[in-house]
C-alpha cells in the first residue's frame, strides 16, 4: 500500500483526486479474490470518473466474489511530478496498491489524443511499455472503448483489445485469467494471450503480422498462430434489459465533468450520419424498456443522492417511449427534488416541447447540431435536417422563452465549398433574425461552434482525405470575418490537434514508434490545449521517417486494405462504400430503426436485432 505524504497532497491542486474513499467505492481483500482488475481512463479524475462504461464494468466485476475491481486515472501534471520525485508508483484509489501488482489493467480508449497518457500511465506504474518486454507477473493490459476499432497505432503497448460492448466479454476475460492463474500460469504470458484470443471480441494484436506494399499501404494483416481468427467481430449485448447497469456508481466528492445520474435509454443510433463513427460502432439500436429505466433511475437516486438525471444516449430524443418515461420519472422522483435533463436536442419542435416540460432551468442554453451550413452538405452527410426544421425548432425555443442558442457544426466535410462554410454564418444570422421576428426585439445570443472534421475508421468517410490544417485555418478566417456581430460568438477547434487526431485515427502499427518518441519527448494530455505540443509530435514523425499526411490528408482508394479491415463492427465494407457513393450523389438514406433497412449487415452478421419499443407496440 502506498502512503501519501501530506506535504505532497498539500502542494497539489485538488488533492481529493488522489485519495479515494468515495461513497459506493468498493474495497476488497486482495488475498480473498482470484483476479484483481485496475480500471483506468487515461485522463484526469474528473474526466475518468464521468465515463459510463467504466462505471458499468466496475459494478459487474465487483459483483463477482472472485474479483476485485479498482479505479485509476492519470495524475495531473503537478501530481505526476510529485510522484516521480518521490518514487510513488501509479496506484489505485481503493486499496492504494501499485497498479503493477494487479492481474489486469483495463484502459478505456475514448479518443486518440489520450494515447500518450496511456504510455505515461504505464511508465508511472513501472510496467514495461512494450508488450514484448512484459513478463509473467506484469498485469495484462487490456484496451476497451471506441478507439479499439483501430487502435493499431497503440498495438505495441497493449496485450489485447476488446471490440464492442464490455458487459459480457469482461467476465469472459476474467474467467480466462482466473483459470490461467489457477493453472500456475501455464504457458506463461503467451499462454494466456492465446486463450484470450479465442474469446469472441478479444483482439490480441501481437498474434497478427502486418505487411506493407512498397507505396506504404497495408498489404495484409494475418494471424501468426491458429488461436487468432482472421476477422474479429465486435461483442454486442442483445438485450440491454438483461444486463447489469451502473446502479451503484462511485460518487465523487469533487465536481466531475458529468456530475449527475446518467440514465442510458438505449444504445446505438441508426440515423446514419455518414461522418459518425459511434453510429456504426454501436449498431443496432437497442432500447431499454420504460419499466427497466424507471427501476434503474430509482435505484440510482437511492444509491447516490444525485438530484439530476441526464437521459443519455447517442440521440436521446429518438427514444420511442420518451414522453412516458419522462412523465413517470417526474411523477416518481419529484418528491426527492430530482430534475431531469436531456444532453442534446433533436432539431424539431417536439424536442422543444420536451425541454419545456423538463423545465430545464437555465433558460440560457439550448444546443442543436445542424453539423453543416447548407442543405446540400447536410444531404451529403445524411443529416436529415432541413432549414425549416431548424427554423421551427429555434422559433419554438424563442417562443418558449429561450434566448440563447448554441449551434454545432463541422468544417472540412467531403465536397465542402466556401459556400457551405459561409452557409454557417447565414444560419447564425437567420437565427438572430428569427428572434427579432418572434419577440420584436434584439438580444438573442448565438454561439457557433465549429469542429474540424476528422474522418474516422468504419464510417462511409473512411476513404476521404482530411483537409490540411492550413485549409481549416483559411476556412476559419473566412467564417470569422463574416461572424462579426456582437450577438454571435464563434468557437473553433485547433486545426493542428485535429490533424494529429486524423493521423492516429486512421493510422497503422508503424505509428507506435511515433507515439513512443513523442511521449519520451514530453507529449501528454494532448487533448488539453495547454499541454498540447504540436512540434514534439511533428519531430517524432520526422524521427521515425513517417509522414502524418499519408494517414490524415491522403484520399484512399476503395481497393486499399485499411489497417482495421480485420476488425469488424458488423457493418460491411459494401455498405460503407454504398454510403460513400450516396454521399457524393447528395442522396439520403433512411433510418432503419423505423423505416427501411439499409442493409448495413450488422443484424445478420452478429445475430442481433433492432429493439425499438415504439415500433413493436
Amino acid at each position, binding site marked *: 500500500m502506498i502512503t501519501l*505524504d501530506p506535504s505532497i497532497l498539500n*502542494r497539489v491542486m485538488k488533492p481529493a483526486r488522489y485519495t479515494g474513499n468515495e461513497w459506493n467505492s468498493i474495497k476488497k481483500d486482495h488475498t480473498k479474490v482470484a483476479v484483481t482488475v485496475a480500471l483506468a481512463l487515461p485522463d484526469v479524475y474528473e474526466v475518468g470518473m464521468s465515463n459510463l462504461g467504466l462505471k458499468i464494468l466496475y459494478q459487474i466485476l465487483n459483483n463477482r466474489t472472485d474479483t476485485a475491481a479498482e479505479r485509476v486515472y492519470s495524475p495531473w501534471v503537478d501530481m505526476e511530478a510529485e510522484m516521480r520525485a518521490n518514487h510513488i508508483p501509479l496506484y489505485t484509489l481503493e486499496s492504494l496498491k501499485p497498479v503493477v501488482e494487479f492481474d489486469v489493467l483495463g484502459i478505456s480508449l475514448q479518443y486518440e489524443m489520450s494515447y500518450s497518457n496511456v504510455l505515461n500511465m504505464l511508465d508511472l506504474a513501472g510496467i514495461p511499455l512494450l508488450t514484448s518486454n512484459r513478463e509473467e507477473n506484469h498485469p495484462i493490459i487490456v484496451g476497451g472503448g471506441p478507439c479499439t476499432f483501430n487502435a493499431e497505432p497503440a498495438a505495441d503497448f497493449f496485450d489485447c483489445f476488446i471490440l464492442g460492448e464490455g458487459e459480457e466479454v469482461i467476465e469472459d476475460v476474467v474467467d480466462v485469467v482466473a483459470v490461467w492463474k489457477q493453472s500456475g500460469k501455464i504457458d506463461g504470458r503467451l499462454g494466456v494471450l492465446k486463450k484470450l484470443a479465442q474469446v469472441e471480441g478479444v483482439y490480441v494484436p501481437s498474434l497478427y503480422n502486418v505487411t506493407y506494399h512498397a507505396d506504404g499501404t497495408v498489404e495484409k494483416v494475418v494471424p501468426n498462430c491458429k488461436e487468432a481468427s482472421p476477422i474479429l467481430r465486435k461483442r454486442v449485448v442483445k438485450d440491454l434489459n438483461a444486463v447489469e447497469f451502473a446502479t451503484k456508481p462511485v460518487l465523487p466528492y469533487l465536481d466531475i465533468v458529468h456530475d449527475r445520474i446518467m440514465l442510458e435509454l438505449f444504445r446505438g443510433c441508426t440515423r446514419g450520419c455518414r461522418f459518425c463513427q459511434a453510429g456504426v460502432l454501436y449498431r443496432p439500436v437497442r432500447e431499454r424498456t420504460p419499466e427497466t429505466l424507471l427501476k434503474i433511475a430509482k435505484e440510482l437516486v437511492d*444509491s447516490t443522492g444525485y438530484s439530476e438525471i441526464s437521459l443519455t444516449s447517442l440521440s436521446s430524443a429518438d427514444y420511442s417511449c420518451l414522453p412516458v418515461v419522462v412523465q413517470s420519472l417526474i411523477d416518481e422522483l419529484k418528491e426527492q427534488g430530482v430534475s431531469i435533463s436531456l444532453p442534446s436536442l433533436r432539431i424539431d419542435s417536439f424536442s422543444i416541447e420536451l425541454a419545456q416540460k423538463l423545465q430545464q432551468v437555465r433558460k440560457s442554453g439550448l444546443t442543436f447540431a445542424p453539423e453543416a451550413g447548407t442543405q446540400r452538405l447536410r444531404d451529403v452527410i445524411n443529416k436529415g435536417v432541413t432549414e425549416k426544421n431548424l427554423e421551427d425548432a429555434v422559433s419554438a425555443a424563442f417562443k418558449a422563452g429561450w434566448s440563447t442558442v448554441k449551434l454545432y457544426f463541422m468544417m472540412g466535410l467531403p465536397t465542402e465549398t466556401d459556400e457551405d462554410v459561409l452557409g454557417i454564418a447565414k444560419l447564425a444570422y437567420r437565427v438572430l433574425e428569427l428572434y427579432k421576428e418572434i419577440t420584436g426585439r434584439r438580444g438573442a445570443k448565438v454561439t457557433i461552434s465549429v469542429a474540424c472534421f476528422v474522418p474516422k475508421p468504419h464510417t462511409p468517410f473512411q476513404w476521404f482525405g482530411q483537409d490540411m490544417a492550413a485549409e481549416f485555418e483559411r476556412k476559419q478566417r473566412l467564417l470569422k470575418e463574416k461572424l462579426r456581430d456582437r450577438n454571435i460568438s464563434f468557437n473553433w477547434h485547433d486545426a493542428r490537434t485535429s490533424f494529429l487526431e486524423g493521423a492516429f485515427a486512421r493510422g497503422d502499427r508503424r505509428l507506435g514508434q511515433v507515439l513512443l518518441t513523442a511521449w519520451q519527448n514530453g507529449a501528454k494530455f494532448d487533448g488539453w490545449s495547454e499541454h498540447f505540443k504540436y512540434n514534439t509530435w511533428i519531430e517524432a514523425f520526422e524521427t521515425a521517417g513517417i509522414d502524418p499526411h499519408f494517414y490524415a490528408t491522403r484520399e484512399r482508394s476503395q481497393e486499399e486494405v485499411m489497417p482495421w479491415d480485420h476488425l469488424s463492427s458488423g457493418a460491411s465494407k459494401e455498405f460503407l462504400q454504398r454510403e460513400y457513393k450516396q454521399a457524393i450523389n447528395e442522396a439520403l438514406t433512411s433510418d432503419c430503426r423505423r423505416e427501411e433497412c439499409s442493409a448495413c449487415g450488422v443484424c445478420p452478421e452478429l445475430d442481433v436485432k433492432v429493439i425499438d419499443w415504439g415500433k413493436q407496440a
Partner: protein
Amino acid sequence: MGKLRLEITKGEEIRYISHLDYASAIERAVIRSKMPAAYSEGFNPHMKLSFASALAVGVTSQAEYMDIEFKEDMDLKQAIQRLAAVLPPGIKINSGKYVPANAPALMALVNLATYDVVVPVGKVEDTTAFEESIRRFNQTEEVLYIRETPKGRKEIEVKQYMDQDIKLIPQEEGIKLVIDSKITPTGSIKPGEILDILVTMFNLAVDKDKALINRTGLYVVTNGKRLKPIDL
C-alpha cells in the same frame, strides 16, 4: 418545528476535500436517507442546510456543526440514525438536537475556532528554537500578512484574530501547536496561514506542507465562556 442541529466530523478519509464538496456530500447523504428535507422556494430550489464555518482543504475536524430543516417532524433519534447510515466514510455524527426554527444561524453564532497543528520534525531533542519562535509571535503586537487569493492580494493584521497565545506542545517526533483563533464578522485567520507566518516571519524551522491540521472545536464565546453550538 425546529431545525436539526448536528455535531459532525470530517475525518482523515476525507481530509483533502473542500468545504463545498463536504457540504454536497452531506446533501447527497440526506437525499439517500429519504428524509423529508425542506427546500428553498424559487426557480432553483436548494436544500435548507447550513454550516457553521468553512473548513479548508487538508484540514480535518472533530466538531463541525450543521443545521437542517425538514418539511415534517422527524424524531431526533431516528433522524440521526437514518442519516448516519448513509454518510460517507469520515463523516460521523457526534450528537444532535433540535433548535427553534428562528434560532440564529450557526454562521452568525460561532466566533471561535480551535486547532491542533501537528508538524513532524523528527526526533525532538531541544525545543528551545521552536519555543522562541512561538514566544516572539505571541509577544508581537501587530503582525501584517499578505493574503493572496485568486481575487487578489490583501494585507491583514493577524493578531486581532488571536484569542489566546499559541501553545507549543512537544510530541514524540514533532511539535504540536494549539491555536485558538477568532471568527469575526470582518474576517478570521486560517491555521495554515498562521503556520505560514510562523515559518516565514518567525523562523519556525518546519516544513509547513507536512503539517496535519485538525479543528478541535468551534465555539460560541459569550462573556468569556466557551459553549459548543450544540450546547446552547
